[in-house]
Protein backbone atom coordinates (compact mmCIF):
# COMPACT_ATOMS: atom_id res chain seq x y z
CA UNK A 1 0.00 0.00 0.00
CA UNK A 2 1.33 3.38 -0.97
CA UNK A 3 1.68 6.00 1.74
CA UNK A 4 -0.60 8.96 1.90
CA UNK A 5 0.24 11.83 -0.37
CA UNK A 6 2.03 14.65 1.35
CA UNK A 7 -0.75 17.25 1.73
CA UNK A 8 -3.16 14.64 3.00
CA UNK A 9 -0.61 13.25 5.36
CA UNK A 10 0.03 16.73 6.67
CA UNK A 11 -3.71 17.22 7.25
CA UNK A 12 -4.09 13.97 9.14
CA UNK A 13 -1.09 14.90 11.22
CA UNK A 14 -2.54 18.32 11.94
CA UNK A 15 -5.78 16.74 13.04
CA UNK A 16 -3.98 14.35 15.35
CA UNK A 17 -2.00 17.26 16.62
CA UNK A 18 -5.21 19.18 17.37
CA UNK A 19 -6.71 16.30 19.28
CA UNK A 20 -3.55 16.03 21.35
CA UNK A 21 -3.86 19.74 22.05
CA UNK A 22 -7.46 19.32 23.09
CA UNK A 23 -6.55 16.42 25.34
CA UNK A 24 -3.71 18.31 26.96
CA UNK A 25 -5.87 21.38 27.58
CA UNK A 26 -9.16 19.66 28.28
CA UNK A 27 -9.40 21.11 31.76
CA UNK A 28 -9.09 24.70 30.53
CA UNK A 29 -11.37 24.08 27.61
CA UNK A 30 -14.11 22.72 29.83
CA UNK A 31 -13.66 25.57 32.25
CA UNK A 32 -14.07 28.16 29.51
CA UNK A 33 -16.93 26.19 28.03
CA UNK A 34 -18.76 26.43 31.34
CA UNK A 35 -17.92 30.15 31.57
CA UNK A 36 -19.19 30.62 28.03
CA UNK A 37 -22.35 28.75 28.83
CA UNK A 38 -22.91 30.86 31.93
CA UNK A 39 -22.59 34.11 30.01
CA UNK A 40 -24.96 32.80 27.35
CA UNK A 41 -27.48 31.56 29.89
CA UNK A 42 -27.57 34.84 31.80
CA UNK A 43 -27.76 36.93 28.62
CA UNK A 44 -30.48 34.82 27.00
CA UNK A 45 -32.39 34.70 30.27
CA UNK A 46 -32.34 38.45 30.77
CA UNK A 47 -33.03 39.13 27.07
CA UNK A 48 -36.01 36.76 27.20
CA UNK A 49 -37.58 38.36 30.25
CA UNK A 50 -37.05 41.88 28.93
CA UNK A 51 -38.15 41.14 25.36
CA UNK A 52 -41.25 39.13 26.31
CA UNK A 53 -42.42 41.76 28.80
CA UNK A 54 -41.67 44.54 26.34
CA UNK A 55 -43.35 42.62 23.53
CA UNK A 56 -46.47 41.92 25.57
CA UNK A 57 -46.69 45.56 26.53
CA UNK A 58 -45.88 46.96 23.09
CA UNK A 59 -47.91 44.58 20.92
CA UNK A 60 -51.17 46.45 21.09
CA UNK A 61 -49.54 49.92 21.15
CA UNK A 62 -48.55 50.75 17.59
CA UNK A 63 -46.12 53.55 18.40
CA UNK A 64 -44.32 51.78 21.23
CA UNK A 65 -44.20 48.67 19.12
CA UNK A 66 -42.62 50.39 16.12
CA UNK A 67 -40.13 52.17 18.37
CA UNK A 68 -39.20 49.03 20.27
CA UNK A 69 -38.66 47.04 17.12
CA UNK A 70 -36.53 49.73 15.46
CA UNK A 71 -34.41 50.39 18.52
CA UNK A 72 -33.69 46.72 19.15
CA UNK A 73 -32.99 46.45 15.43
CA UNK A 74 -30.46 49.25 15.68
CA UNK A 75 -28.69 47.39 18.51
CA UNK A 76 -28.08 44.55 16.13
CA UNK A 77 -26.42 46.81 13.59
CA UNK A 78 -23.94 48.35 16.02
CA UNK A 79 -20.59 46.62 15.44
CA UNK A 80 -20.20 44.20 18.29
CA UNK A 81 -16.69 45.25 19.22
CA UNK A 82 -17.82 48.84 19.70
CA UNK A 83 -20.94 47.89 21.66
CA UNK A 84 -18.98 45.68 24.04
CA UNK A 85 -16.44 48.41 24.64
CA UNK A 86 -19.17 51.01 25.09
CA UNK A 87 -20.18 49.51 28.42
CA UNK A 88 -16.71 49.35 29.98
CA UNK A 89 -17.00 52.86 31.44
CA UNK A 90 -20.30 51.90 33.01
CA UNK A 91 -19.62 48.36 34.18
CA UNK A 92 -15.85 48.10 34.23
CA UNK A 93 -13.92 45.25 32.71
CA UNK A 94 -15.04 41.61 32.76
CA UNK A 95 -18.23 39.69 32.05
CA UNK A 96 -20.64 42.44 33.02
CA UNK A 97 -20.20 44.81 30.06
CA UNK A 98 -20.25 41.74 27.82
CA UNK A 99 -23.52 40.47 29.24
CA UNK A 100 -25.17 43.86 28.86
CA UNK A 101 -24.12 44.04 25.22
CA UNK A 102 -25.23 40.44 24.58
CA UNK A 103 -28.63 41.11 26.11
CA UNK A 104 -29.11 44.04 23.73
CA UNK A 105 -28.18 41.84 20.78
CA UNK A 106 -30.53 39.13 21.88
CA UNK A 107 -33.58 41.39 22.26
CA UNK A 108 -34.73 41.77 18.67
CA UNK A 109 -35.42 38.15 17.68
CA UNK A 110 -37.32 37.47 20.91
CA UNK A 111 -39.17 40.77 20.82
CA UNK A 112 -40.16 40.36 17.19
CA UNK A 113 -41.36 36.82 17.73
CA UNK A 114 -43.26 37.75 20.88
CA UNK A 115 -45.09 40.45 18.99
CA UNK A 116 -45.74 38.19 16.00
CA UNK A 117 -46.80 35.33 18.25
CA UNK A 118 -49.26 37.52 20.13
CA UNK A 119 -50.54 38.92 16.82
CA UNK A 120 -51.29 35.41 15.65
CA UNK A 121 -53.62 34.64 18.55
CA UNK A 122 -57.15 34.54 17.15
CA UNK A 123 -59.13 37.68 18.07
CA UNK A 124 -62.11 35.43 18.83
CA UNK A 125 -60.10 33.65 21.51
CA UNK A 126 -59.09 36.93 23.12
CA UNK A 127 -62.66 38.20 22.82
CA UNK A 128 -64.04 35.14 24.57
CA UNK A 129 -61.36 35.32 27.27
CA UNK A 130 -62.31 38.93 27.93
CA UNK A 131 -65.99 38.12 27.69
CA UNK A 132 -65.67 35.52 30.43
CA UNK A 133 -64.20 38.12 32.74
CA UNK A 134 -60.47 37.44 32.51
CA UNK A 135 -58.45 40.47 33.54
CA UNK A 136 -55.92 41.75 30.97
CA UNK A 137 -53.20 40.06 33.01
CA UNK A 138 -55.04 36.72 33.08
CA UNK A 139 -55.67 37.01 29.36
CA UNK A 140 -51.95 37.49 28.79
CA UNK A 141 -50.68 34.79 31.14
CA UNK A 142 -53.34 32.13 30.64
CA UNK A 143 -54.28 32.58 27.03
CA UNK A 144 -52.20 34.86 24.85
CA UNK A 145 -48.68 33.94 25.95
CA UNK A 146 -49.33 30.18 26.05
CA UNK A 147 -50.68 30.42 22.52
CA UNK A 148 -47.71 32.54 21.40
CA UNK A 149 -45.28 30.21 23.14
CA UNK A 150 -44.03 28.22 20.12
CA UNK A 151 -43.28 31.40 18.20
CA UNK A 152 -41.62 33.10 21.18
CA UNK A 153 -39.53 29.98 21.68
CA UNK A 154 -38.38 30.10 18.08
CA UNK A 155 -37.17 33.64 18.73
CA UNK A 156 -35.33 32.54 21.86
CA UNK A 157 -33.54 29.90 19.81
CA UNK A 158 -32.38 32.44 17.24
CA UNK A 159 -31.18 34.77 19.99
CA UNK A 160 -29.37 31.92 21.69
CA UNK A 161 -27.43 31.04 18.55
CA UNK A 162 -26.61 34.69 18.02
CA UNK A 163 -25.43 35.14 21.59
CA UNK A 164 -23.38 31.94 21.63
CA UNK A 165 -21.36 33.27 18.72
CA UNK A 166 -21.05 36.81 20.00
CA UNK A 167 -19.97 35.68 23.47
CA UNK A 168 -16.63 34.77 21.90
CA UNK A 169 -15.95 38.52 21.76
CA UNK A 170 -16.46 38.94 25.52
CA UNK A 171 -12.79 38.17 26.00
CA UNK A 172 -11.91 41.52 24.41
CA UNK A 173 -13.55 43.39 27.27
CA UNK A 174 -11.98 41.15 29.86
CA UNK A 175 -14.67 38.52 29.92
CA UNK A 176 -14.41 34.74 29.99
CA UNK A 177 -15.52 32.14 27.53
CA UNK A 178 -14.23 30.17 24.59
CA UNK A 179 -13.18 33.44 22.93
CA UNK A 180 -10.07 33.36 25.08
CA UNK A 181 -8.74 30.46 22.95
CA UNK A 182 -9.35 32.40 19.78
CA UNK A 183 -7.71 35.51 21.14
CA UNK A 184 -4.83 33.47 22.51
CA UNK A 185 -4.28 31.80 19.15
CA UNK A 186 -4.50 35.05 17.21
CA UNK A 187 -2.03 36.92 19.44
CA UNK A 188 0.42 34.03 19.26
CA UNK A 189 0.00 33.69 15.51
CA UNK A 190 2.87 31.64 14.08
CA UNK A 191 3.83 30.12 17.39
CA UNK A 192 3.21 26.46 18.18
CA UNK A 193 -0.43 25.52 18.78
CA UNK A 194 -1.64 29.01 17.87
CA UNK A 195 -3.85 27.55 15.11
CA UNK A 196 -5.03 24.75 17.37
CA UNK A 197 -6.20 27.22 19.96
CA UNK A 198 -8.22 29.21 17.41
CA UNK A 199 -9.82 26.01 16.13
CA UNK A 200 -10.67 24.93 19.68
CA UNK A 201 -12.42 28.26 20.24
CA UNK A 202 -14.40 27.98 17.03
CA UNK A 203 -15.28 24.29 17.22
CA UNK A 204 -16.43 24.34 20.82
CA UNK A 205 -18.42 27.53 20.31
CA UNK A 206 -20.23 26.02 17.33
CA UNK A 207 -20.77 22.76 19.20
CA UNK A 208 -22.18 24.63 22.17
CA UNK A 209 -24.55 26.51 19.85
CA UNK A 210 -25.80 23.31 18.25
CA UNK A 211 -26.29 21.54 21.56
CA UNK A 212 -28.15 24.49 23.08
CA UNK A 213 -30.36 24.75 20.03
CA UNK A 214 -31.19 21.06 20.27
CA UNK A 215 -31.98 21.44 23.97
CA UNK A 216 -34.24 24.44 23.30
CA UNK A 217 -35.94 22.63 20.43
CA UNK A 218 -36.77 19.85 22.87
CA UNK A 219 -38.01 22.33 25.45
CA UNK A 220 -40.16 23.93 22.78
CA UNK A 221 -41.67 20.61 21.78
CA UNK A 222 -42.24 19.38 25.32
CA UNK A 223 -43.83 22.58 26.58
CA UNK A 224 -45.96 23.39 23.55
CA UNK A 225 -49.52 22.70 24.70
CA UNK A 226 -50.77 19.47 23.18
CA UNK A 227 -53.77 21.20 21.68
CA UNK A 228 -51.45 23.35 19.54
CA UNK A 229 -49.43 20.53 18.03
CA UNK A 230 -50.35 19.90 14.44
Amino acid sequence: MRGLSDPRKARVEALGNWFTYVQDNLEFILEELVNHLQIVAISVGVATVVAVLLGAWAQSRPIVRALALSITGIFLTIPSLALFALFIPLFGIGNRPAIVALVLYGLLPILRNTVTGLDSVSPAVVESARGMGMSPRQQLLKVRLPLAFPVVMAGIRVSTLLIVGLTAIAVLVGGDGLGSFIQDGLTRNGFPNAGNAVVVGVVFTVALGLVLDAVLATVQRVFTPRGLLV
Partner: protein
Amino acid sequence: MSPEPKIHLDRVGKTYPGTKIPAVEDLTLDVHEGEILVLVGPSGCGKSTTLRLINRMIEPSNGRILLDGEDVTKVNPDKLRRRIGYVIQQIGLFPHQTIAQNIATVPKMLGWEKERITEQVESLLTTVGLDPDQYRDRFPKELSGGQAQRVGVARALGADPDIMLMDEPFGAIDPITRDRLQNEFLRLQEELHKTIVFVTHDIDEAIKMGDRIAILGDRSTIRQIDTPERILAYPVDDFVDDFIGTGSTIKGLNFLKVSSLKQTDYPSISDADPCATGVAKLDEAGLEWLVLVDAQRRPLRWLHRDELAKSPASYDDLGEDVGDLLNSDDSLFHALELMVQSAAGQSVVVDKHGAFAGVVEMSHLNKAIRRAQYEARLHYEEMEANA
Protein backbone atom coordinates in the same frame (compact mmCIF):
# COMPACT_ATOMS: atom_id res chain seq x y z
CA MET B 1 -95.09 42.27 32.80
CA SER B 2 -92.81 41.09 35.57
CA PRO B 3 -92.21 43.57 38.37
CA GLU B 4 -88.52 44.19 37.78
CA PRO B 5 -86.71 43.52 34.53
CA LYS B 6 -83.67 41.25 34.77
CA ILE B 7 -81.75 43.59 32.49
CA HIS B 8 -82.66 47.21 32.12
CA LEU B 9 -80.89 49.51 29.70
CA ASP B 10 -81.63 53.10 30.58
CA ARG B 11 -80.99 55.41 27.63
CA VAL B 12 -77.70 53.70 26.87
CA GLY B 13 -75.65 55.10 24.03
CA LYS B 14 -72.30 54.58 22.42
CA THR B 15 -70.46 57.09 20.33
CA TYR B 16 -67.03 56.00 19.21
CA PRO B 17 -64.27 58.57 19.62
CA GLY B 18 -63.74 60.55 16.45
CA THR B 19 -67.25 59.96 15.15
CA LYS B 20 -70.26 62.21 15.41
CA ILE B 21 -73.04 59.74 14.71
CA PRO B 22 -73.60 57.39 17.63
CA ALA B 23 -73.43 53.62 16.97
CA VAL B 24 -76.16 53.17 19.56
CA GLU B 25 -78.40 56.07 20.45
CA ASP B 26 -80.26 56.39 23.74
CA LEU B 27 -81.51 52.83 23.84
CA THR B 28 -83.97 51.93 26.55
CA LEU B 29 -84.73 48.25 26.75
CA ASP B 30 -86.01 45.76 29.30
CA VAL B 31 -85.25 42.08 29.26
CA HIS B 32 -87.45 40.03 31.53
CA GLU B 33 -86.32 37.15 33.65
CA GLY B 34 -86.29 33.83 31.82
CA GLU B 35 -87.05 35.16 28.36
CA ILE B 36 -85.11 35.01 25.13
CA LEU B 37 -85.02 38.48 23.65
CA VAL B 38 -83.72 38.49 20.10
CA LEU B 39 -82.08 41.60 18.70
CA VAL B 40 -82.43 41.47 14.96
CA GLY B 41 -81.74 43.99 12.26
CA PRO B 42 -79.83 44.68 9.08
CA SER B 43 -76.05 44.48 9.31
CA GLY B 44 -74.49 47.61 10.70
CA CYS B 45 -77.53 48.56 12.75
CA GLY B 46 -75.59 48.20 15.98
CA LYS B 47 -77.18 45.05 17.33
CA SER B 48 -73.85 43.43 18.28
CA THR B 49 -72.67 46.69 19.78
CA THR B 50 -75.84 46.79 21.84
CA LEU B 51 -75.24 43.26 23.08
CA ARG B 52 -71.66 44.07 23.98
CA LEU B 53 -72.75 47.14 25.91
CA ILE B 54 -74.64 44.88 28.32
CA ASN B 55 -71.50 43.13 29.59
CA ARG B 56 -69.48 46.25 28.91
CA MET B 57 -67.21 44.63 26.36
CA ILE B 58 -67.88 48.05 24.92
CA GLU B 59 -68.14 50.76 27.53
CA PRO B 60 -71.28 52.85 27.06
CA SER B 61 -70.74 56.56 26.47
CA ASN B 62 -73.90 57.42 28.33
CA GLY B 63 -76.83 55.84 30.09
CA ARG B 64 -77.06 53.18 32.76
CA ILE B 65 -77.18 49.39 32.74
CA LEU B 66 -79.10 47.70 35.53
CA LEU B 67 -79.05 44.00 36.33
CA ASP B 68 -81.70 42.96 38.86
CA GLY B 69 -82.11 46.63 39.63
CA GLU B 70 -78.42 47.03 40.45
CA ASP B 71 -76.53 49.69 38.52
CA VAL B 72 -73.54 47.91 37.01
CA THR B 73 -72.36 50.75 34.81
CA LYS B 74 -69.44 51.45 37.11
CA VAL B 75 -68.61 48.09 38.74
CA ASN B 76 -65.46 46.15 37.85
CA PRO B 77 -66.16 44.94 34.30
CA ASP B 78 -64.26 41.65 34.73
CA LYS B 79 -66.31 40.71 37.78
CA LEU B 80 -69.46 41.74 35.91
CA ARG B 81 -68.59 39.51 32.94
CA ARG B 82 -68.07 36.48 35.19
CA ARG B 83 -71.76 36.77 36.08
CA ILE B 84 -72.86 36.79 32.45
CA GLY B 85 -72.51 33.95 29.97
CA TYR B 86 -71.12 35.08 26.62
CA VAL B 87 -71.24 33.11 23.39
CA ILE B 88 -69.90 34.45 20.10
CA GLN B 89 -70.18 33.22 16.55
CA GLN B 90 -66.50 32.32 16.25
CA ILE B 91 -66.80 30.50 19.60
CA GLY B 92 -63.21 31.28 20.61
CA LEU B 93 -62.45 28.11 22.54
CA PHE B 94 -58.95 28.12 23.99
CA PRO B 95 -57.04 25.85 21.62
CA HIS B 96 -54.33 25.06 24.17
CA GLN B 97 -56.77 23.77 26.74
CA THR B 98 -58.86 20.63 26.89
CA ILE B 99 -62.63 20.84 26.65
CA ALA B 100 -62.87 20.32 30.42
CA GLN B 101 -60.38 23.12 31.09
CA ASN B 102 -62.24 25.40 28.71
CA ILE B 103 -65.54 24.82 30.48
CA ALA B 104 -63.88 25.26 33.88
CA THR B 105 -62.59 28.76 33.01
CA VAL B 106 -65.07 30.87 34.93
CA PRO B 107 -65.62 28.47 37.87
CA LYS B 108 -61.84 28.44 38.34
CA MET B 109 -61.65 32.23 38.36
CA LEU B 110 -64.44 32.26 40.92
CA GLY B 111 -62.39 29.92 43.09
CA TRP B 112 -64.67 26.91 43.07
CA GLU B 113 -63.34 23.76 44.66
CA LYS B 114 -61.84 21.15 42.41
CA GLU B 115 -64.50 18.49 42.91
CA ARG B 116 -67.26 20.98 42.32
CA ILE B 117 -65.62 22.08 39.07
CA THR B 118 -65.23 18.48 37.90
CA GLU B 119 -68.87 17.78 38.66
CA GLN B 120 -69.97 20.95 36.92
CA VAL B 121 -67.95 20.10 33.79
CA GLU B 122 -69.48 16.62 33.66
CA SER B 123 -72.97 17.90 34.09
CA LEU B 124 -72.56 20.68 31.52
CA LEU B 125 -71.12 18.34 28.90
CA THR B 126 -74.08 16.05 29.44
CA THR B 127 -76.44 19.02 29.26
CA VAL B 128 -75.18 20.06 25.84
CA GLY B 129 -75.32 16.48 24.61
CA LEU B 130 -71.65 15.49 24.65
CA ASP B 131 -70.52 12.35 26.46
CA PRO B 132 -68.09 13.54 29.17
CA ASP B 133 -65.95 10.41 28.98
CA GLN B 134 -65.48 10.90 25.29
CA TYR B 135 -64.98 14.66 25.14
CA ARG B 136 -63.57 15.84 28.48
CA ASP B 137 -59.92 15.48 27.50
CA ARG B 138 -60.17 16.40 23.86
CA PHE B 139 -58.77 19.59 22.42
CA PRO B 140 -60.89 22.08 20.48
CA LYS B 141 -59.24 21.24 17.16
CA GLU B 142 -60.59 17.71 17.54
CA LEU B 143 -64.20 18.92 17.43
CA SER B 144 -66.57 19.62 14.55
CA GLY B 145 -68.14 23.06 14.26
CA GLY B 146 -71.36 21.92 15.87
CA GLN B 147 -69.57 20.18 18.74
CA ALA B 148 -67.36 23.23 19.28
CA GLN B 149 -70.40 25.48 19.56
CA ARG B 150 -71.96 23.08 22.08
CA VAL B 151 -68.78 23.38 24.14
CA GLY B 152 -68.98 27.16 23.66
CA VAL B 153 -72.46 27.13 25.17
CA ALA B 154 -71.34 24.80 27.97
CA ARG B 155 -68.44 27.12 28.74
CA ALA B 156 -70.73 30.13 28.85
CA LEU B 157 -72.95 28.21 31.29
CA GLY B 158 -69.80 27.37 33.30
CA ALA B 159 -70.60 29.13 36.55
CA ASP B 160 -74.36 28.93 36.03
CA PRO B 161 -74.95 32.60 35.20
CA ASP B 162 -78.51 33.96 35.18
CA ILE B 163 -77.87 35.91 32.04
CA MET B 164 -76.53 34.77 28.69
CA LEU B 165 -75.50 36.99 25.81
CA MET B 166 -75.31 35.23 22.48
CA ASP B 167 -73.94 36.95 19.39
CA GLU B 168 -75.02 35.00 16.30
CA PRO B 169 -74.08 31.77 18.08
CA PHE B 170 -75.24 29.49 15.28
CA GLY B 171 -74.29 31.77 12.41
CA ALA B 172 -71.25 29.87 11.21
CA ILE B 173 -72.79 26.41 11.34
CA ASP B 174 -74.28 24.49 8.44
CA PRO B 175 -78.09 24.75 8.16
CA ILE B 176 -78.90 21.21 9.26
CA THR B 177 -76.69 21.32 12.34
CA ARG B 178 -77.89 24.84 13.07
CA ASP B 179 -81.48 23.69 13.10
CA ARG B 180 -80.62 20.87 15.49
CA LEU B 181 -78.62 23.14 17.79
CA GLN B 182 -81.45 25.68 17.83
CA ASN B 183 -83.96 23.00 18.81
CA GLU B 184 -81.65 21.61 21.47
CA PHE B 185 -81.02 25.06 22.80
CA LEU B 186 -84.72 25.81 23.06
CA ARG B 187 -85.24 22.53 24.90
CA LEU B 188 -82.35 23.40 27.20
CA GLN B 189 -83.82 26.81 27.89
CA GLU B 190 -87.07 25.20 29.03
CA GLU B 191 -85.08 23.62 31.86
CA LEU B 192 -82.65 26.43 32.54
CA HIS B 193 -84.85 29.54 32.30
CA LYS B 194 -81.89 31.80 31.68
CA THR B 195 -82.41 35.38 30.70
CA ILE B 196 -80.99 35.50 27.20
CA VAL B 197 -80.21 38.27 24.79
CA PHE B 198 -79.64 36.77 21.38
CA VAL B 199 -78.33 38.64 18.33
CA THR B 200 -78.96 37.48 14.80
CA HIS B 201 -79.41 39.01 11.36
CA ASP B 202 -81.67 36.14 10.33
CA ILE B 203 -85.34 36.93 10.87
CA ASP B 204 -86.29 33.26 10.68
CA GLU B 205 -83.88 32.44 13.47
CA ALA B 206 -85.30 35.37 15.43
CA ILE B 207 -88.85 34.09 14.95
CA LYS B 208 -87.83 30.62 16.00
CA MET B 209 -85.70 31.49 19.02
CA GLY B 210 -87.33 34.59 20.41
CA ASP B 211 -89.92 34.90 23.14
CA ARG B 212 -89.75 38.51 22.07
CA ILE B 213 -88.02 40.15 19.14
CA ALA B 214 -86.62 43.64 18.96
CA ILE B 215 -86.28 44.79 15.38
CA LEU B 216 -83.55 47.38 15.27
CA GLY B 217 -82.95 50.12 12.74
CA ASP B 218 -80.05 52.50 12.34
CA ARG B 219 -78.19 53.43 15.52
CA SER B 220 -79.88 50.50 17.20
CA THR B 221 -83.20 52.30 17.49
CA ILE B 222 -86.04 49.92 18.29
CA ARG B 223 -88.51 49.89 15.41
CA GLN B 224 -90.72 47.25 16.96
CA ILE B 225 -90.40 45.03 19.98
CA ASP B 226 -92.92 42.31 20.61
CA THR B 227 -93.66 38.62 20.43
CA PRO B 228 -92.90 37.05 17.05
CA GLU B 229 -96.58 36.33 16.48
CA ARG B 230 -97.60 39.94 16.91
CA ILE B 231 -94.73 41.27 14.81
CA LEU B 232 -95.66 38.90 12.00
CA ALA B 233 -99.34 39.73 12.33
CA TYR B 234 -98.85 43.45 12.61
CA PRO B 235 -95.58 44.99 11.45
CA VAL B 236 -95.80 48.57 12.67
CA ASP B 237 -94.15 50.24 9.68
CA ASP B 238 -92.63 49.67 6.25
CA PHE B 239 -89.15 49.18 7.70
CA VAL B 240 -90.33 46.26 9.83
CA ASP B 241 -92.51 44.97 7.04
CA ASP B 242 -89.57 44.98 4.61
CA PHE B 243 -87.30 43.41 7.15
CA ILE B 244 -89.54 40.49 8.02
CA GLY B 245 -89.92 40.00 4.31
CA THR B 246 -92.45 38.28 2.13
CA GLY B 247 -94.21 35.27 3.50
CA SER B 248 -94.35 36.73 6.97
CA THR B 249 -98.07 36.08 7.20
CA ILE B 250 -97.52 32.46 6.37
CA LYS B 251 -94.67 32.30 8.93
CA GLY B 252 -97.19 33.65 11.41
CA LEU B 253 -99.19 30.45 10.96
CA ASN B 254 -96.44 28.77 12.96
CA PHE B 255 -97.77 30.48 16.07
CA LEU B 256 -101.42 29.54 15.58
CA LYS B 257 -102.65 26.15 16.67
CA VAL B 258 -105.25 23.87 15.14
CA SER B 259 -107.01 23.95 18.51
CA SER B 260 -107.65 27.68 18.04
CA LEU B 261 -110.03 26.89 15.17
CA LYS B 262 -113.65 26.22 15.86
CA GLN B 263 -114.24 22.70 14.54
CA THR B 264 -117.44 22.42 12.56
CA ASP B 265 -119.10 19.16 11.56
CA TYR B 266 -117.78 17.74 8.36
CA PRO B 267 -119.52 14.88 6.53
CA SER B 268 -118.02 11.45 6.92
CA ILE B 269 -119.23 7.91 6.42
CA SER B 270 -118.12 4.70 7.97
CA ASP B 271 -117.02 1.91 5.64
CA ALA B 272 -120.13 -0.02 6.77
CA ASP B 273 -122.48 2.70 5.55
CA PRO B 274 -124.07 2.49 2.10
CA CYS B 275 -123.06 4.89 -0.67
CA ALA B 276 -126.41 6.54 -0.67
CA THR B 277 -125.87 7.82 2.89
CA GLY B 278 -122.70 9.49 1.73
CA VAL B 279 -124.29 11.11 -1.29
CA ALA B 280 -127.14 12.31 0.86
CA LYS B 281 -124.74 13.85 3.37
CA LEU B 282 -122.78 15.60 0.65
CA ASP B 283 -125.92 16.96 -0.96
CA GLU B 284 -127.09 18.23 2.35
CA ALA B 285 -123.81 20.02 3.03
CA GLY B 286 -123.30 21.07 -0.57
CA LEU B 287 -119.79 19.56 -0.65
CA GLU B 288 -117.75 17.43 -3.07
CA TRP B 289 -115.55 15.38 -0.73
CA LEU B 290 -116.28 13.37 2.37
CA VAL B 291 -114.10 11.46 4.75
CA LEU B 292 -114.31 7.69 4.91
CA VAL B 293 -113.68 6.43 8.44
CA ASP B 294 -113.33 2.98 9.91
CA ALA B 295 -115.31 1.44 12.76
CA GLN B 296 -113.26 3.41 15.30
CA ARG B 297 -113.93 6.56 13.27
CA ARG B 298 -110.29 6.77 12.22
CA PRO B 299 -109.99 8.61 8.87
CA LEU B 300 -109.16 6.33 5.95
CA ARG B 301 -109.56 8.18 2.66
CA TRP B 302 -111.18 11.09 0.90
CA LEU B 303 -114.15 10.02 -1.24
CA HIS B 304 -115.44 12.19 -4.07
CA ARG B 305 -119.14 12.64 -4.75
CA ASP B 306 -118.82 11.38 -8.35
CA GLU B 307 -117.34 8.09 -7.19
CA LEU B 308 -120.06 7.59 -4.62
CA ALA B 309 -122.77 8.44 -7.15
CA LYS B 310 -121.69 5.42 -9.21
CA SER B 311 -122.74 3.20 -6.24
CA PRO B 312 -119.65 1.00 -6.16
CA ALA B 313 -119.86 -2.43 -4.52
CA SER B 314 -117.13 -1.64 -2.01
CA TYR B 315 -115.01 1.35 -0.95
CA ASP B 316 -111.76 -0.59 -1.07
CA ASP B 317 -110.32 0.80 -4.28
CA LEU B 318 -111.91 4.20 -4.08
CA GLY B 319 -110.80 7.62 -2.99
CA GLU B 320 -107.65 9.52 -2.26
CA ASP B 321 -105.19 9.25 0.59
CA VAL B 322 -106.00 11.53 3.56
CA GLY B 323 -102.29 12.08 4.13
CA ASP B 324 -100.83 12.94 7.53
CA LEU B 325 -103.38 13.75 10.20
CA LEU B 326 -103.41 16.86 12.36
CA ASN B 327 -103.66 16.95 16.13
CA SER B 328 -105.12 19.85 18.03
CA ASP B 329 -101.70 21.19 19.10
CA ASP B 330 -100.21 21.15 15.59
CA SER B 331 -99.55 24.55 14.05
CA LEU B 332 -101.66 26.00 11.29
CA PHE B 333 -98.47 26.16 9.24
CA HIS B 334 -98.40 22.38 9.34
CA ALA B 335 -102.10 22.35 8.47
CA LEU B 336 -101.37 24.52 5.44
CA GLU B 337 -98.60 22.22 4.32
CA LEU B 338 -100.89 19.19 4.44
CA MET B 339 -103.70 21.10 2.85
CA VAL B 340 -101.80 22.00 -0.28
CA GLN B 341 -100.89 18.33 -0.71
CA SER B 342 -104.39 17.04 -0.17
CA ALA B 343 -106.66 15.97 -3.03
CA ALA B 344 -109.59 17.60 -1.29
CA GLY B 345 -107.64 20.81 -0.55
CA GLN B 346 -108.26 20.29 3.15
CA SER B 347 -106.32 18.71 5.95
CA VAL B 348 -107.87 16.22 8.32
CA VAL B 349 -107.90 16.71 12.08
CA VAL B 350 -108.18 13.87 14.57
CA ASP B 351 -108.79 13.94 18.32
CA LYS B 352 -106.44 12.43 20.85
CA HIS B 353 -107.86 8.95 20.25
CA GLY B 354 -107.17 9.21 16.54
CA ALA B 355 -110.86 9.61 15.67
CA PHE B 356 -111.97 11.99 12.94
CA ALA B 357 -112.64 15.42 14.43
CA GLY B 358 -112.95 17.73 11.47
CA VAL B 359 -111.03 19.42 8.70
CA VAL B 360 -108.97 22.57 8.20
CA GLU B 361 -109.55 24.47 4.98
CA MET B 362 -108.24 27.66 3.47
CA SER B 363 -111.07 29.81 4.77
CA HIS B 364 -110.21 28.71 8.33
CA LEU B 365 -106.63 29.85 7.92
CA ASN B 366 -107.82 33.06 6.37
CA LYS B 367 -110.07 33.75 9.33
CA ALA B 368 -107.41 32.79 11.87
CA ILE B 369 -104.86 35.11 10.30
CA ARG B 370 -107.27 37.97 10.05
CA ARG B 371 -108.23 37.50 13.66
CA ALA B 372 -104.55 37.47 14.72
CA GLN B 373 -103.95 40.63 12.71
CA TYR B 374 -106.98 42.28 14.18
CA GLU B 375 -105.96 41.40 17.73
CA ALA B 376 -102.43 42.65 17.15
CA ARG B 377 -103.72 45.90 15.72
CA LEU B 378 -106.07 46.29 18.64
CA HIS B 379 -103.14 45.72 21.01
CA TYR B 380 -101.14 48.48 19.35
CA GLU B 381 -104.08 50.82 19.26
CA GLU B 382 -104.66 50.25 22.96
CA MET B 383 -100.98 50.87 23.64
CA GLU B 384 -101.12 54.08 21.68
CA ALA B 385 -104.27 55.16 23.47
CA ASN B 386 -102.60 54.51 26.83
CA ALA B 387 -99.42 56.28 25.88
